[in-house]
């Protein structure tokens, strides 16, 4: 669509007044491959084209979208939206300029230039590697997906952005059974990259690892339960930071009083060993981008610094409410949704301790080597997540594997109880769900020692509600 036409559409959208009008045009091409029982069952391709128009006026937002991306249709949608919110007319700036991003991505192998058979080969390679490990591996499912998303974003503050995002992901789930017991193991890989993603790790490695984890859990003993010290290994991924504080630091929840961290800027909310950062500018990570879905440049935001709450994550709407600037966290699943504040790549910064020393310092406790999915009630900070791979620590040594552990805790309490922070950092990818919108994220943490968490049982949790739940799904 030509720039002049976009200007006309924005003017129509603001015809009845309003603080901000925005157009978001998206064209998404995707491919997904799924393999189960060693059969490539589905290869799906898709073209999704649509545009959404939003007008913000004070506390109200009107949003409409259509799949018919023509000048006529968009003008009609703009007209519809303009009638839904009314407000004072403001000065608008339609001298479109494009902000310069802090990061760029070089895509070596664009997914649309890679043959389907090459993608299928990666899937089969992973399946075979997983199955070759042991006869007890009864089922393996492998999924590959790539997305090429072209967006055009223009708003009445004069922002005009055209961007292309390319993401690739890969996941393997292995099921092991010895006749009585069934256990699963999963691995995943993903990034804002093309087919060169597999230079990070080969599919066969991912298959082996998933199979070995399932087999290990088959031999594992049931997890002990009760309060105990917990060491979260860096490779465990960042589910804890995502659930324990990430969601509660999203500005929409904080502003509505729906976060345990609401109104706590400048206050101590964590051990001084803890610094939490959200950073969209880490090269090639799954939650990285040049621009967010409102055309704001992706940036690095220190959320908690040495235990003190510094900043929330803002999109334009929440920033407007406080008269400040967006932190570049306005994201949406697609043109079908309005943007809301979301995490990108969220992590606890490295500390000084040697990971081995952290384990040695633990007399009796649980070592978490891989975390599964999680869920949080942001209102009071209670969270829960699964342990996909866990071990006992006895007298500073890692001993037997344990299965079926879940960890429950309270976000602020857990962050206060961080006693040691390793000098390492490990990432995991996921699709984070909020208000029904899934967006790609990654999260990370160093090896952490937490004074005590509730293992196995779920004492301390139990009050949440269902409709609003923030789950991270490990893909």
């Amino acid at each position, binding site marked *: 669509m030509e720039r002049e036409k976009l200007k006309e559409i924005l003017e129509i959208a603001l015809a009845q007044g309003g603080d901000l009008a925005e157009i978001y045009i998206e064209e998404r091409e995707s491919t997904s491959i799924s393999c189960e029982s060693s*059969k490539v069952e589905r290869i799906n391709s898709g*073209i999704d084209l*649509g545009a959404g128009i939003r007008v913000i006026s004070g*506390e109200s937002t009107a949003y*409409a979208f259509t*799949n018919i991306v023509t000048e006529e249709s968009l003008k009609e949608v703009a007209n519809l939206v303009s009638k839904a919110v009314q407000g004072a007319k403001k000065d608008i700036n339609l001298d479109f300029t494009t902000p310069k991003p802090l990061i760029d991505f070089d895509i070596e192998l664009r997914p649309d230039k890679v043959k389907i058979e090459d993608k299928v080969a990666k899937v089969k390679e992973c399946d075979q590697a997983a199955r070759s490990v042991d006869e007890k591996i009864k089922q393996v499912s492998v999924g590959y997906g790539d997305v090429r998303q072209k967006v055009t974003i223009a708003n009445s503050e004069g922002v005009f952005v055209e961007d292309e995002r390319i993401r690739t992901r890969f996941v393997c789930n292995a099921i092991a059974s010895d006749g009585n017991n069934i256990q699963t193991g999963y691995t995943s890989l993903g990034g804002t990259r093309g087919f060169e993603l597999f230079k990070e790790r080969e599919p066969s490695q991912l298959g082996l690892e998933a199979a070995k984890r399932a087999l290990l859990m088959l031999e594992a003993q049931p997890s002990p339960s009760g309060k105990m010290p917990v060491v979260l290994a860096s490779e465990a991924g960042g589910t804890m930071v995502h659930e324990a504080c990430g969601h509660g630091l999203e500005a929409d929840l904080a502003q509505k009083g729906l976060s345990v961290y609401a109104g706590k800027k400048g206050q101590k909310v964590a051990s001084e060993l803890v610094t939490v950062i959200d950073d969209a500018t880490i090269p090639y990570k799954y939650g990285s981008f040049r621009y967010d879905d409102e055309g704001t440049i992706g940036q690095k935001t220190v959320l908690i610094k040495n235990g003190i709450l510094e900043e929330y994550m803002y999109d334009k709407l929440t920033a407007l409410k406080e008269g400040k600037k967006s932190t570049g966290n306005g994201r949406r699943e697609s043109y079908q949704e309005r943007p809301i504040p979301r995490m990108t790549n969220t992590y606890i910064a490295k500390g000084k301790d040697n990971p081995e020393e952290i384990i040695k310092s633990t007399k009796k406790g649980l070592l978490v080597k891989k975390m599964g999915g999680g869920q949080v009630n942001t209102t009071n900070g209670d969270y829960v997540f699964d342990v996909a791979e866990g071990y006992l620590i006895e007298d500073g040594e890692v001993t037997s594997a344990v299965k079926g552990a879940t960890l429950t805790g309270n976000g602020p309490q857990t962050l206060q109880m961080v006693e040691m922070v390793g000098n390492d950092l490990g990432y995991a990818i996921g699709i984070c769900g909020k208000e029904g919108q899934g967006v790609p994220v990654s999260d990370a943490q160093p090896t952490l020692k937490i004074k005590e968490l509730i293992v196995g*049982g779920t004492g301390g949790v*139990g009050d949440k509600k269902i409709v609003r739940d923030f789950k991270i799904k490990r893909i």
Partner: protein
Amino acid sequence: MADKDFRRLGLEVVAKAQKLGAEMAEAFLLNSRQLSIQVANQKVETMKLAEDRGLGIRVFRNNRLGFAFTSDLDALAIEKAINQALANCRYTEEDEFLTIAEKYSAYPELDLYDPQISDISVDEKIRLAKEIELKAKNYDSRIKITERAGYDDSQYEICIVNSQGLEAYYHGAYCGGYSLVVGEQDGDSQTGFGMQYEVKYKDLNPEKIGQEAAKRAVRLLGAKTVKSQKAPIVLEPYIATSFLSIISPTLSAEAVHKGKSFLANKINEKVASTLVTIIDDGRMPGRVSSAPFDGEGVPTGETVLIKDGVLQGYLHNTYTAKKDGVKSTGNGVRGSYRSTPEVGSTNFYLANGDISPEDLIKEVDRGLYVTDVMGMHTANPISGDFSLGASGIWIENGEFTYPVRGVAIAGNLKEFLLNIDRVANDLTFFVSKGSPTLRINNISISGS
């Protein structure tokens, strides 16, 4: 788009796919309009209008399946999608059971379109959303925050055309309201929700939706934990339906074929208490998940899955049915035009028993009435194991006493089904899953 335009486009797509080399082809077309209104503090916070349309195409060649979709219905985009689907089916596995639906002479007649949903003005719908919020806030002074309250509706038309001569079309609509509020007292805060989705606009009851949310938010304020013990639990219908959401995928023939169901190879065996009858019924009158046909054009129907505790069969689409030598149960479910039809449930419910929920509770000496669980998505459909955080209300001598939080209930779905020892007569649907109040005996409750 009108019925005949949709059919014409579907026929063109199928003919084009066949011309380009498909042995069998199927076009799925969807066109929908949605409105959602969210209010907070008696002001419209968000109003969303959506128009979504698109095409999903399945092609078959040499017993291989390829799929592609497009939301762009330009001739060029459609041709690109057909070619992509054909390219994809060169690399999928050969499978002799892959098929499409045959032509059907008739479909169930369902009243799924209430013209009021489109006739009623947006202003009136905004008023309804505000009323929901007001009813929640006015119910109790401890209701302090509205996270969301709102009204949604959707009007849609679906058309399926395939190369077996199948041409099916219907249109429908639904509407609903919801409320999500926070109650506060002495530093404790609890959330509660209420929702209702209906085919008929006049059936929406804003007062009930609002009050339900408020009741849920305040009833757990000041909750405490209980001692660890074995005791019966009573599940209110909403919680019982969240268990059914984990059980329904294990009744899909696809999960059974792949060894991913704890109910595999158990037909004609007792898998649940004799009080348990579980049914999937895609043509239930007045339900928002009802439709004359599924995502492949197969007529929907009533499938009794578990009868008096005995497993009768599984849910099928055309593929799993051909594999098992049975007929599709009309459970080839599509999320949208963006995905292939996979085995799924429609209106999935546990049938009523004959005791009132009040009498059921009166019979409990000591036990937990469960109103909320956390971590349901971590339950394992293969092994059946679950471990959940729970909260609710303690029952003592058949009476509700104090609210409880911070306990864990753990167990296995197999035992869960077998240990249901009371089924009440208050079947309640939450969108597509329904259950009456249930009592489960002898559950480990871990608390302090």
